């Protein structure tokens, strides 16, 4: 057994354990620590490891979801960092926390890392909260809601003839269908595309089914470098390529129908170097899946979002990391040999991360 040689970086690092809490519209009994604690316990139990085995800990979260500063500080109590640990935090989706951990693992000083992310969309008005992300001078004061912004992007796609409302509905129907096999998903049902197309517009051209659900959840993964990965899992999900890129924040300066940052990241991560079996894409709105899929260059043979994807469960700050955990799970269970995971951050796919995971054949 030997790990495939990575395209980016020098040291093979694998996702070896993954846990997530069920995505729910509202987790109203447990606070963030209590939502996270069982997930951390599970990710360790699955790996037969403890916090004492971790060389590094990195998390992703954002204060504006909870409406108070330092939400990551309290969350750290779910791990119990005593004795003191080497630990860091990104104010980004936890997929980027995984990237930070992966970078450190490249140096060969540490072999293991715990990565987690959590978010409750239910505490505030998410659409209004996300308007706080916009340029504070020219856009923020207008308080545009995220559905209307996504509708601008969908319109750009339709007007360019790059997709159809029919395709949006097919993506939603497929996501809900696949989510029936995912106990952690939130929107799970069997519904004909024709029926979805009868729904009224939320914001034209977006019908309700093209919108992600509002979700509360947490997720965690464990990364292990080198041969130690085989002690944890029979068929490690090796990260053979990973990269992320950001675009300008000014919507007017971007072609919203394409994602150049995703395309760049996919190229550097080496997606095109071999066939892809499955991809977990983080385009929270149905039209965004079309854009991301096109940018990565995935053809019709690739199974997209077997977990149900973000249209079935979209916990902020964790949904990107969940894509990586779900893709890794397909490698572990043998249903895929080469998988792609994608994460996005910022308004209208401003920032994107692409990761290629491979198992030995």
């Amino acid at each position, binding site marked *: 057994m030997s790990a495939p040689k990575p395209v980016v970086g020098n040291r093979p690092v694998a996702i070896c354990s993954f846990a997530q809490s069920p995505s729910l519209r509202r987790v109203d009994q447990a606070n963030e620590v209590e939502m996270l604690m069982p997930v951390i316990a599970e990710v360790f139990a699955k790996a037969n490891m403890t916090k004492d085995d971790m060389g590094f800990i990195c998390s992703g979260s*954002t204060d504006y979801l909870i409406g108070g500063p330092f939400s990551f500080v*309290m969350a750290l109590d779910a791990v119990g960092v005593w004795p003191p640990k080497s630990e860091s935090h990104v104010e980004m989706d936890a997929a980027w926390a995984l990237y930070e951990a992966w*970078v450190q693992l*490249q140096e060969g000083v540490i072999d293991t890392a715990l990565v987690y992310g959590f978010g409750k969309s239910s505490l505030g008005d998410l659409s209004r909260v996300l308007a706080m992300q916009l340029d504070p001078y020219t856009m923020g004061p207008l308080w545009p809601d995220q559905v209307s912004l996504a509708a601008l992007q969908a319109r750009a796609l339709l007007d360019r003839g790059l997709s159809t409302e029919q395709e949006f509905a097919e993506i939603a129907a497929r996501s809900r269908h696949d989510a029936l096999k995912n106990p952690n998903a939130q929107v799970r049902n069997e519904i004909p595309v024709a029926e979805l197309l009868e729904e009224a517009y939320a914001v034209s051209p977006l019908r309700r089914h093209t919108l992600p659900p509002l979700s509360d959840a947490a997720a965690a993964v464990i990364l292990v470098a080198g041969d130690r990965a085989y002690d944890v899992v029979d068929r490690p999900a090796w990260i053979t390529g990973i990269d992320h890129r*950001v*675009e300008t*924040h000014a919507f007017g300066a971007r072609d919203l129908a394409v994602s150049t940052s995703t395309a760049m990241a996919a190229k550097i991560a080496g997606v095109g170097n071999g066939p892809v079996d499955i991809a977990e894409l983080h385009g929270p709105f149905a039209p965004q899946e079309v854009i991301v899929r096109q940018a990565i260059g995935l053809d019709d043979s690739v199974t997209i979002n077997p977990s149900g994807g973000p249209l079935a469960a979209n916990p902020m700050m964790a949904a990107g990391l969940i894509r990586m955990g779900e893709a890794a799970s397909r490698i572990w269970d043998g249903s895929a040999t080469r998988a792609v995971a994608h994460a996005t951050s910022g308004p209208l796919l401003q920032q994107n991360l692409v990761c290629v995971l491979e198992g030995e054949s």
Partner: protein
Amino acid sequence: MTERCAVIGIGQTYHKAKREDVSIAGLVREAARAALDDAGMDWGDIDAVVVGKAPDMFEGIMMPELYLASALGAVGKPMLRVHTAGSVGGSTAIVAAHLVQSGIHKRVLTVAFEKQSDSDAMWALSVPRPFSAPLLAGAGGYFAPIIRAYMHRSGAPNDVGMKVAVKDRLQALKNPYAHLHLPDISLKMVEESIMLWDPLHYLESCPSSDGAAAMVIASEDVAESTSKVTGRPPAWVHGTAMRSEPTMFAGRNQVNPQAGRDCAKDVYAQAGITNPRQQLDCAEVYVPFSWYEPMWLENLGFCDEGDGWKLTESGATALDGGDIPWNCSGGVLSSNPIGASGMLRFLEAALQVRNMAGEHQVEGASRALGHAYGGGSQFFSMWVVGSDKR
């Protein structure tokens, strides 16, 4: 393996209570442009950008780095945003260093900032929660009882904190970027300033500043080739470390936290330091309240536990005549753009070993410590830089 890396470009803003002449984008560009100029580089030479700042609520913008992507020349590049409370300026530099040490990138721009005047930090820190008493005591109210505990344990005389306050402000007079320039500073002036949080006087506390800090961190080959062109030496990174412990737990030593001791031990081991007072030429240490100098002297192993105040009192930590000068730049007590404060410590340490600190230069400094801490002293980040490779 860990590749060598070095600081080859340094920039900072003029720190002030209110920088009304620039937007946030203008503020970060002022520091970043200066760092690029120092490195002899332009925006296009940079491979990746790492941004750090304290809570987003300090400015009232969620993930402000998204809107700053263009201003920081990050478009088309990887950009990371770090947030580890008050230690963030240090952790951000460390994340940037790892991007080079891992061999992933060769030229990384790292920027940290706070524009406190754009919002109200005190408000941001005081969101009412049912489990906290409605006391609104601020950061000083949090740290003052811990300082009192230190004074009790160590038996330090009451005026040690005031001596630190004077020393750091005198040193700030030699730093044109410092926010506070108090030419008349004296023990009497500190003592007569209002007692904000007994035992802390007003002049024993840090100001609230707008400001930004930036560095270009490069790989060994890039550092050597650019240095030949610019004629300015690199500051080689000898070690980096981060440590966290829980915010509150039974038996927690808040005066001398274990995480700080562990972090120092780790960074010293990487840098080959066994006696920090002897082997380091100076240190830039996060001292937002005067008494944290003697407390961190002990925590960082510059002396035995209980003896920190004696070092301060003897003048050992003064730029003028001390054997181990601390905060020659004036430190956090003289400039505190919160998110950038930690990076300023890291950056000032690098300036010293590059022999580029100007009037506050420690003569012949070749090895220096940069230190930051955050939260309720549960998050630490540190690095050691040197004028020689290690």
